[in-house]
């Protein structure tokens, strides 16, 4: 059931940084992905050709018969922004746990110590969360947090403002104060490729205003942060994301996660989730 629902969404299966042929797996199906710099193709083990779409510097595909539209990110094409695909990181966890961790700020002082947070600045101030029914997306707004080094382009500690957006069960977009341009948001997204219900590949992607850092430095900054997250994600028990509210205990700081879990359940997006207490 849950896989059937998941089949009709689009997922990233490669980045488009360099031409390549890549053997990978999506929703328990082996795939061969070819990207020659202009066009992409995605083929199943029995020779089935699946649709291939290039968006946000990644090759996306959909295995199901009735693809739901793939979301957009306006800022992707805004002049002056640097688009930074950060490469794929394989994680032994549910794809949904990877997205939920991306939506979480309370872990910054402990997991990203000295970069995205630091004791004693641990408090999560009240913020707003809602499901925007007209677009069927989860949004968290008015989020703020103290950060020692919020971005590669940030000189020192800053109070950072955030907005989070979940437009897809396995993708989330973060809009974040842009240190060199206070009137704009930096955009950081995570696109998650569900390999199976308990293994995923996270493809972080950014669209930033940063004229000084090299592409390699930006990728390295993001990868360092994501590798810290991986040490958490591979040690959460159970591996699947529990949707039964009795299984884990949230607080006010977890409102985004609570809304995300409810939204998944309501949508029937249960691939990678656990619906009943164990």
């Amino acid at each position, binding site marked *: 059931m849950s896989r059937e629902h998941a089949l009709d969404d689009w997922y990233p299966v490669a980045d488009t940084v360099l031409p390549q042929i890549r053997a990978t797996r999506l929703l328990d199906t082996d795939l061969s992905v070819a990207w020659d710099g202009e066009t992409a193709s995605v083929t199943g083990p029995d020779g089935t050709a699946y649709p291939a779409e290039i968006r946000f510097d990644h090759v996306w595909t959909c295995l199901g018969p009735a693809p739901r539209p793939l979301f957009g990110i306006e800022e992707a094409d805004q002049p002056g922004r640097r688009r930074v695909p950060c490469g794929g990181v394989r994680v032994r966890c549910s794809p949904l746990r990877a997205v939920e961790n991306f939506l979480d700020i309370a*872990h910054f*002082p*402990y*997991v990203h110590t000295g970069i995205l947070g630091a*004791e004693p600045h*641990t*408090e999560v101030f009240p913020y707003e969360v809602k499901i925007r029914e007209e677009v069927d997306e989860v949004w968290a707004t008015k989020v703020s947090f103290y950060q020692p080094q919020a971005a590669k382009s940030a000189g020192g500690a800053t109070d950072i403002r955030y907005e989070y957006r979940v437009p897809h069960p396995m993708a989330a977009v973060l809009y974040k104060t842009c240190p060199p341009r206070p009137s704009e948001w930096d955009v950081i997204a995570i696109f998650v490729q569900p390999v199976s219900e308990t293994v995923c590949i996270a493809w972080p992607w950014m669209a930033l205003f940063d004229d000084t850092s090299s592409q390699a430095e930006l990728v390295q900054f993001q990868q360092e942060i994501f590798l810290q997250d991986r040490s*958490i994600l591979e040690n959460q*028990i159970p591996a699947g994301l529990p949707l039964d509210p009795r299984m884990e205990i949230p607080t006010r700081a977890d409102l985004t996660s609570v809304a995300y879990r409810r939204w998944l359940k309501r949508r029937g997006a249960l691939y990678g989730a656990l619906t009943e207490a164990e």
Partner: protein
Amino acid sequence: MTTFPVALAHDLPPGRVQRAFAGGRDLVLWRSASGRAMAWDNRCPHRGMRLSHGFVRGERLACLYHGWQYGTEAACAHIPAHPDLAPPATIRAAAYDLAEAGGVIWVADEGYADPPDMPLAVMPLRSLTFRCDLATLAWACGLEPAPLLFLPEHPSLVIAPNPLGPDRTEAHVLTAPLHAADRIAAIHQTEALRRLAEEAAG
């Protein structure tokens, strides 16, 4: 209800956190700054993170993920995201009864820990894992499985075995007080036992 030896007490100094197993349960084993040892389910009730990756602050264990702190009674005492909130009493780690006897830490999978009578004047030697079941480990010692294995061919050695599964058994080894050279010989004897047991297990 069974009581399992999960570690040598001297391998768990104050401030240390490690993973342990008792009868199929995945546990966090930790010792507070003042010296109290605790064994809990290896799972933070908040977001399921293994507490064995956490850290000790004084008399509390903190989860690595969000820094939630649990006191020695296993109740949540501090949530850093809400520093002014008194955490509800319902937020607790699941605790198991623990006893220290004869230099070994014993944990009950339910009820009270009831360690076997320990010989007097034993010293901790080392803990090691055998890649075999408990019966094979005991066979290598020339014995039947028991909570304590007194080695007939090496009268100074006692093993407290902790069965982890069909192919893994922890052995917490104690000795009579020995001179340094004899301790080294005893370590070699445990290695020889392990080879014998693992060869028999195939």
